[in-house]
């Protein structure tokens, strides 16, 4: 029997090589898979035992045996003292175990039949059993792939660690954010409570103001009613005196009776204004919109105001532009009242010169009314307060008697129509009061006034 595989064994890697060679031989012998596994395992066991016992040589030979064949594995240890321990496991796989001298164990496997190589082919088989390059390459490839896989795993592990670190940081940041949120929430809560308290305070103040305003309105109403009755009586009695109902009057008596009548009439006007103002503030004034003949309305208002004007020194001009429509939707009573008050105001403070009443069509289709006089005018610092109740400019106080209610009432009425009266003035040269009546009166709403300047 010629040994087909001879291997020297010293280290771990030699066991692998012995297995590889035996595997190749078993394939060439065309052994079935079970026999193949048995032989390779046996060689592996023997080879490892040899390495563990300090090294040795191992040879595999194949020969005929009866009807079948036999594989013999000779294991020679280089340390004779270890012989007895050799092949304890391998013996279980072998069909027959014997010793050959002191240092060699022979393990025999009986096989039914094998494809035995011709003697001439033995050399060729031996050549084949040398480690072929491609096998090494494949093994290297595999090892290389393993290394790459391991490095990828390391990278994954590193990135996982990094991710954990980032997560921890994120969690910490979250805690910070939550703490900050809590702080802000508490702060907001405190502020909210402050605001709520402030609102309650403001609410109370608003209620107080409203109640004060109502009280004032009720007071004005009561006072006006109580005043009007006696004033009317005074006017009636003064008229009776002047009509000589009780006989002739001396010139002095007539002069005094005329004073009484004039004073009483002014007082009545003041009381009437006061009553109107009170009604307006109480919300009792109802806006009634209807198509109004503007020209007729202006003419009537001018006629009513003419007796108040000193016709010797003051000229009253009325200009109604051609673009003004024949009918305009508004509340005629309110517009007449506004116009009357503005003209009365102009007449009162214009000792000489002209009073100009103009009516024009505004850009937005509304009606622009203005009353311009060449009177004493109003100082700039007073201009913003002329519409305040009971306010009278310094220049006005020295000029004429009055309550300071006319403009306030006019402004209040204008606001009922959803507009506002504006005043411009040059002290010593005169004033202009302008109001633009809206196309659609919106009761109670105020719209920015649009009026011709000057």
């Amino acid at each position: 029997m010629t040994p087909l595989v001879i291997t020297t064994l010293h280290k771990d890697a030699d066991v692998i090589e012995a297995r590889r060679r035996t595997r190749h031989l078993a394939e060439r012998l065309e052994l079935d898979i079970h026999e193949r596994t048995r032989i390779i395992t046996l060689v592996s066991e023997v080879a490892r035992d040899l390495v563990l016992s300090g090294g040795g040589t191992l040879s595999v030979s194949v020969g005929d045996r009866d009807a079948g064949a036999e594989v013999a594995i000779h294991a020679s240890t280089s340390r004779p003292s270890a012989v007895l321990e050799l092949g304890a496991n391998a013996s279980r796989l072998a069909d027959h175990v014997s010793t050959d001298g002191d240092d060699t164990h022979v393990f025999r496997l009986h096989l039914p039949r094998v494809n035995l190589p011709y003697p001439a082919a033995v050399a060729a088989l031996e050549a084949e059993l040398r480690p072929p390059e491609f096998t090494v390459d494949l093994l290297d490839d595999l090892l290389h792939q393993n290394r790459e896989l391991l490095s990828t795993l390391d990278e994954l592990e590193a990135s996982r660690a990094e991710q954990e670190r980032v997560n921890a940081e994120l969690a910490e940041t979250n805690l910070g954010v939550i703490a900050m949120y809590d702080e802000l929430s508490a702060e907001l809560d405190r502020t909210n409570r402050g605001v709520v308290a402030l609102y309650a305070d403001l609410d109370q103040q608003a209620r107080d103001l409203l109640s004060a305003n109502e009280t004032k309105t009720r007071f004005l109403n009561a006072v006006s009613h109580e005043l009007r009755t006696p004033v009317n009586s005074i006017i009636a009695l003064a008229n009776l005196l002047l009509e000589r109902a009780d006989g002739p009057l001396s010139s002095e008596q007539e002069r005094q009776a005329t004073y009484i009548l004039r004073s009483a009439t002014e007082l009545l006007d003041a009381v009437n204004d006061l009553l109107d103002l009170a009604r307006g503030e109480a919300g009792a004034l109802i806006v009634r919109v209807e198509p109004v003949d503007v020209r007729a309305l202006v003419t009537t208002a001018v006629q009513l105001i003419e007796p108040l004007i000193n016709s010797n020194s003051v000229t009253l001009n009325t200009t109604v532009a051609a673009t003004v429509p024949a009918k305009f939707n508004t509340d005629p009573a309110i517009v007449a009242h506004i116009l009357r008050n503005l003209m009365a105001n102009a007449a009162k403070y214009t000792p000489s010169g002209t009073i100009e009443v103009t009516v024009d069509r505004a850009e937005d289709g509304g009606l622009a009314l203005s009353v311009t006089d060449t009177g004493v005018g109003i100082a700039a610092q007073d201009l913003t307060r002329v519409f305040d109740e009971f306010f009278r400019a310094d220049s006005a106080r020295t000029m004429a008697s009055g309550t300071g209610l006319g403009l306030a009432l006019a402004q209040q009425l204008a606001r009922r129509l959803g507009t506002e009266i504006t005043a411009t003035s040059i002290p010593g040269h005169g004033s202009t009061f302008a109001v633009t009546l809206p196309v659609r009166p919106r009761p109670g709403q105020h719209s920015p006034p649009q009026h011709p300047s000057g």
Partner: protein
Amino acid sequence: MDRIPILKIGSRLLATIQSDLHDAMALQLEDDLAESVVRYQSDGVIVDVSALDVVDSYVGRMLAHMASVTRLLGADTVVVGIRPAVAITLVELGLSLGDARTALTVEHAFAYLDSMGAERQAEADSQSDAHLRDGAEPGGGSPILDPLRLAQAQINRSP
């Protein structure tokens, strides 16, 4: 030093032995698996040996040892893909894989580990171990098969 990669799949570890195993690689694998079980708190280890045409007593002992170590760490070890010829040879060697369980495929190994997890919750550990030793199918019909048992049966039948 070449090492065998260990993949983490959920709470399980999978090590596939792709080449003929050096002794040093085997030792390294044992160390790596024990360390990974602790690090990932794994409850199961699957060792795929389907590429091996030889499992000698050294590798067999290594697998058994590995299973004992991981078991002490609270993880079951399942060896999958043992070839029939290898199984027969292991029986002839008189070798046992000790605490290592076996399964035909990785899927079966996962199913087995799942059933073990469920069983642990349902029963006491000692009871479930006794079931396995008796060869009863855990979890009522788990696809687990023991190639060693099959191989023994085959040997007993052959003349």
